[in-house]
């Protein structure tokens, strides 16, 4: 995860902490001082149990949540400036599409903010539709699409203005396993085509290992990074990657790190809760 010598790190966190004000007392520590570097073109996953602050950390990088302490640099400038310069695109767990806009106009939303003219927007929208394989759906409204298609529109919207950095907050968490694996493959293809840097929040170990060049393992109370695992699986990754012995070794390694950080129990707890909920 070291920055290249020439280009500045895509993301550089130094001593970043976050406390949420509580009632009266000290408040809740969401993030204890965190250092993290993400090099240009890397695909870094943040994995950890619920409440470990991984979504908060992503929002700190995007300057959507102000850290209590530490410094955040994005593309070599302060996070606030990076946001003002529209240096990153963001994808949430829900697609967060504007349902009064068609697919094409949702994808064009950031381009409107950037002041692109109509013709240029239309051209880019067609390219993005091709990229996420939704050509022909430009006139549909979001509620006419499946959950997986909606999330692809959301990715197209985030990438439409070619940001150098893509922030993704459990983007496939609400989808079924099969759709999720297909979109994992698509995301890798898009990542390679666009050459952007991706910071990806997930609580699926196999998803993190399959997608990433690096996995940062987080732990809760307070949120911190307890380990960094380099994923040395060869590129490009395919459906066969998931069946390689090395894939399972790495999954095991990430799981071990989670357990040491107290995360595995928390993950297991979470799964139990999910089972309870399903009942």
């Amino acid at each position, binding site marked *: 995860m070291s920055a290249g010598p020439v280009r500045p790190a895509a993301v550089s966190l130094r001593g970043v902490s976050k406390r949420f004000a509580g009632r009266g007392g000290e408040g809740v520590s969401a993030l204890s001082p965190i250092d993290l570097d993400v090099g240009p073109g890397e695909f870094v996953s943040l994995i950890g149990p619920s409440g470990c602050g991984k979504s908060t950390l992503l*929002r700190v990088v*995007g300057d*959507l949540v102000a850290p209590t302490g530490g410094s955040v640099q994005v593309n070599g400038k302060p996070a606030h400036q990076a*946001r*003002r310069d*529209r240096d*990153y*695109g*963001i994808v*949430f767990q*829900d697609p*967060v599409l*504007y*349902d*009064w*806009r068609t697919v094409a106009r949702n994808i064009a*939303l*950031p381009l*409107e*903010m950037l002041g692109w003219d109509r013709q240029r927007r239309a051209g880019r929208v067609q390219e993005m539709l091709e990229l996420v394989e939704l050509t022909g759906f430009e006139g549909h*409204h*979001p*509620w006419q699409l499946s959950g997986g298609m909606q999330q692809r529109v959301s990715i197209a919207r985030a990438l439409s203005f070619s940001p150098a950095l893509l922030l993704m907050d459990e983007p496939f968490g609400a989808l079924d396993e099969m759709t999720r694996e297909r979109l994992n493959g698509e995301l890798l293809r898009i990542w390679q085509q666009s050459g952007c840097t991706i910071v990806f929040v997930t609580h699926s170990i196999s998803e993190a290992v399959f997608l990433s060049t690096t996995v940062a393992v987080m732990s809760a109370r307070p949120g911190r990074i307890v380990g960094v695992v380099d994923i040395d699986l060869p590129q490009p990754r395919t459906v066969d990657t998931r069946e390689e012995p090395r894939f399972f070794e790495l999954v095991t390694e990430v799981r071990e790190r989670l357990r040491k950080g107290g995360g595995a129990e928390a993950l297991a707890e979470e799964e139990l809760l999910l089972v309870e909920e399903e009942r």
Partner: protein
Amino acid sequence: MVARGRVRGVLVFLAVLGALAAIWEGYKAIGEATGLTWPFEVNDRSMPHLHDIVGELFEPSRRNGPLLIGVLLKAAVFTAREAILGFLLGATTGFLLGIALAHSRLLERGFLPYIVASQTIPILAIAPMVVVWLGAGLFSVAIIAAYLTFFPVTINTLRGLRSADPRAHELMDSYAANRWAVLWKLRVPASMPYLFTALKISAPASVVGAIIGELPSSIQGGLAGAILNYNIYYITSPASLWATDVIAALLGIGFFGTVVVAERLVVHRAPEHVA
């Protein structure tokens, strides 16, 4: 499927209309046969036959005069002009007020109580003052209609502008969007279903406001003049007043229907967001 649903809708509408007519005529027949006197005596004066009310429309309004329907339609057009102006005035004022209040809790806290209080003052008490200030005429009547129109629009716009999902706002933040862009690209579109709910209330209310506004102005050309006139002649010709009410109601329904059509054309929201 759509066509079949529409046919079904029309059939249900006609069935309800028929049932209401049957209740009216049934009550009248039973009331007359049994000599019912409570809560009122049932006869051709208190409850004219429906066919007499409709028939009255096609009788001369006075000896050798034009047909009643011609007189009433002319009055309806007269009142409609005031109501449309009042509706546009009230809806615009209400919408802009809603935007102003949505942007500042301070403004909201300062002004909302007075806006609510304004609606507790009877419109009949406000109307003469507007006439005193602005003189009798189209504009003063429109102001009175606007007074009844703006309030639901303000309240619903305020709610609608605050209805957008927090993540939708976060997305705008990620683009470093300014207030103006957030307003027009997110908050206003998100408020549209709320706005149209208010407009559906306001549109018929503007007709009521226009009719009430005509009273203190002593304006004769509108529906208020017709109502007063046929009220005087109720003993001799009760169906005329009923016919006037029918035309006034149709005008209000027309206003409502126009808003519904406009909503279909303007609002393209997910089914769960459409009232």
